[in-house]
């Protein structure tokens, strides 16, 4: 019975941690816009946390630059299981216009298993909400069914 409650509550209260791997802050502002009155994602129980140790869903933005790569990897490794990694915008997917630059070390998939990627540059808040909902389904499978 407790397991069922925990499963249900895991989807009802996803806490977000936002990692900026060198992004142009376009996606970051849109992500914060989600928490505003217009797109209020707190109704899904979402909360922005200060440390990776409290997080369930990690939002990564920006093409992974050489400087941020190992820091991002260290931070993502510190997120307790079950965790879902969501990439925002096209930069993490394919380093967008920064392809081939000396300081960009390739899309996020090269370093971290990305569960959900949300397209758009920057993705529309509604697209982010869709991505979030899909991430919640993945979060459910990540721990529950196994």
């Amino acid at each position: 019975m407790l397991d069922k409650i925990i499963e249900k509550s895991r989807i009802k209260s996803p806490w977000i941690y936002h990692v900026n791997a060198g992004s142009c802050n376009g996606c970051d502002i849109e992500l914060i816009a989600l928490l505003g009155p217009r797109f209020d994602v707190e109704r899904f129980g979402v909360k922005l946390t200060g440390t990776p140790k409290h997080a369930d869903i990690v939002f990564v933005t920006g093409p992974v630059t050489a400087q941020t790569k190992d820091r991002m990897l260290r931070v993502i490794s510190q997120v307790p299981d079950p965790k879902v990694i969501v990439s925002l915008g096209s930069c993490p997917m394919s380093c967008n216009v920064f392809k081939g630059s000396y300081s960009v070390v390739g899309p996020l998939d090269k370093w971290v298993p990305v569960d959900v990627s949300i397209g758009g540059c920057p993705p529309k808040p509604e697209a982010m909400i869709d991505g979030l909902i899909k991430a919640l389904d993945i979060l459910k499978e990540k721990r529950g069914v196994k």
Partner: protein
Amino acid sequence: MKFPYIKEAVGNIFKNPVTEKYPFKKVELPEGFRGKIEFDETKCIGCGICIKVCAASAITKTVETTREGRKICMEFNMGSCTFCSFCSDFCPKSAIHLSNEYSMIKTADENNMIVKGSFINILPPKPQTAAAKAGEKKE
């Protein structure tokens, strides 16, 4: 010690919230919204201007020569597109149009990031040289 927003805060309790209940109520987008690319393959002539002009080099063109002509396949990778709509502006045949489709989600199982379109490009027959034409007339 000035306390802003006291009146607004108290007033807001009795007003209904402004949140748009997105997943349950669709959002209407402004016209001219640069969303996902729609590629009309009939109009496209495979000139490749869009590839040259795309900053993020998100467009790739693959050509295979088949029996009835050259099959040109244009591929738009929405994952690396910056939605600047240069391609649709420069396209001479206006074959590329950025639609209102904003929700592009790629997960392990479904991936609607790639927009493909291919057409067969039948080359006009080469003008035979005068002799070949003459020969053909003789038969």
